């Protein structure tokens, strides 16, 4: 894609995700809204390179999308043999930011409705709210385009037929519904972020859109604890992105990242949000706050060796007490190894509840064995961590480790 075309596509995507929410409200149907927006986007990308970007891209897109929607409705009523006389879409030529924001918020609660499964919510969010196309979503969710298309059709069908409303929930429903929204935003960001690099995803658009969504919800509900914690966690993670990949696009482990390349602005913002969120929650921390607090400890340390590992172990213990899962148990074992030596880390890994052994567990165990001086065992263990589900960048890294340990 050429540079000017890419810039246009970016404007269309950014405005499109905002407008589609208003279209969905006016048309009462998500599929029609997306179809109309799609047509407007195609026309924009065809015409703007000739005519230049209009003064208000949003107004241009709205007018074009509205025309597309009206045409479609006319065609369909003609086909169904029905007259929908006087059918006019009430859509202003331009929309103030407040209307756009309220509509987006409604659509967020629709896309993250608890009557939809979490994978359905995440897929729909990436498509409708983040404006990603099918190949991007398939890459982020490690699935096929046809599976994404099928899931989207099913999800939109359920919203329309079961009449999932476009509405911000009432105060008494809000805590539960907001938790669902936060889970979807975090899952969308994590999926996009973890695939970034190597030969999976090179386009940072997905992470950028998830950050934008997290900012939108936090700004709309500044007094709520959870959106601030999720945004803090995302920003503190995002801050490390410039140092996270080497020149080949391979991931760089935390210990070896060049911390001068971390985004200090994002870190400061993340720390501020976390602080405000913690003060509002009155001492009871939720999983996002605890994960953000762990990220904050890393952000504060000038160097990997300066990290307060004892504090990080303590935070992982708290996290495991509210949300036990293996990813956190493995990360805690790494922190234990840093605080008390590799043997202690190995004991922590071995003390984990017995479940299916994952490649991540194998790889971390191999690293700790190597650090404890058991190089042959480490190389053997790392070979077991080369399972088919390991991505190519990670595989290259692990193969380099095996070669290194076998040489010494």
């Amino acid at each position, binding site marked *: 894609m050429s540079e000017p075309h890419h810039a246009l596509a970016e404007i269309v995507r950014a405005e499109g995700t905002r407008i589609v929410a208003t279209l969905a409200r006016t048309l009462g149907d998500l599929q029609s809204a997306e179809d109309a927006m799609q047509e407007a986007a195609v026309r924009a990308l065809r015409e703007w390179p000739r005519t230049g970007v209009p003064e208000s891209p949003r107004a241009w897109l709205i007018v074009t999308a509205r025309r597309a929607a009206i045409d479609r409705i006319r065609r369909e009523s003609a086909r169904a043999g029905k007259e929908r006389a006087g059918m006019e879409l009430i859509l202003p030529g331009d929309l103030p930011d407040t209307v756009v924001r309220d509509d987006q918020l409604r659509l967020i609660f629709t896309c993250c409705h608890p*009557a939809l*499964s979490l994978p359905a919510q995440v897929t729909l969010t990436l498509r409708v709210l983040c404006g990603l196309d099918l190949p991007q979503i398939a890459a982020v969710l490690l699935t096929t385009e046809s599976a994404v298309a099928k899931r989207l059709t099913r999800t939109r069908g*359920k919203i329309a*037929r*079961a*009449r999932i*409303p476009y509405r911000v929930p009432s105060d008494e429903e809000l805590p*539960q519904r907001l938790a669902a929204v936060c889970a979807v935003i975090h899952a969308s960001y994590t999926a996009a972020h973890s695939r970034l690099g190597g030969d999976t995803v090179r386009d940072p658009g997905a992470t950028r859109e998830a950050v934008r969504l997290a900012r939108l919800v936090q700004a709309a509900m500044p007094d709520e604890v959870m959106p601030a914690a999720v945004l803090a966690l995302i920003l503190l993670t995002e801050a490390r992105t410039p140092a996270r990949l080497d020149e080949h696009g391979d991931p760089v482990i935390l210990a070896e990242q060049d911390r001068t390349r971390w985004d200090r602005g994002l870190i400061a913002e993340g720390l501020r949000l976390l602080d405000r969120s913690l003060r509002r929650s009155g001492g009871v921390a939720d999983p996002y706050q605890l994960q953000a607090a762990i990220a904050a400890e890393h952000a504060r340390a000038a160097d990997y060796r300066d990290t307060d590992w004892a504090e990080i172990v303590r935070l992982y213990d708290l996290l495991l007490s509210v949300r036990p899962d293996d990813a956190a148990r493995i990360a805690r074992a790494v922190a234990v190894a840093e605080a008390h030596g590799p043997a202690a880390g190995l004991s922590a890994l071995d003390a984990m509840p017995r479940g299916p052994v994952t490649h991540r567990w194998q790889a971390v165990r191999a690293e700790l064995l190597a650090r404890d001086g058991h190089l042959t065992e480490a190389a053997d263990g790392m070979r077991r961590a080369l399972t088919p589900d390991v991505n190519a960048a990670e595989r290259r890294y692990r193969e380099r480790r095996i070669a290194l340990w076998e040489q010494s």
Partner: protein
Amino acid sequence: MAQYVALTYTADVDWSDPEHAEAMREYSRFGAEHRNVIRGGAPLYPTSTATTVRVVGARGGDVVTADGPYAETKEALTGFYLIEAADLDEAVRVAAEIPAAWNGAVEVRPVIELGG
């Protein structure tokens, strides 16, 4: 006179899709022929539009909704209500008041409105 409910089991299709128009005409024919004994009934949207509602513990407990139909075999179908609601949220609120929601589960499925 006694009353009976006749539950229909077929492939999980979308009756509102024009490709099933012929099948729908057969159902209409059945409906017309047995008009004098039919007290109510409706075609349902496919199971992909279903929401299963459960209430944790007892009445008034947390309402847990899940995407999809009731898919376990422990419990049996023991009754049904036809509910009118503005949207799914309202329908789920009503469903969560049915004792089955805390003693088992309530599957909420949208009805296809015929005519109009």
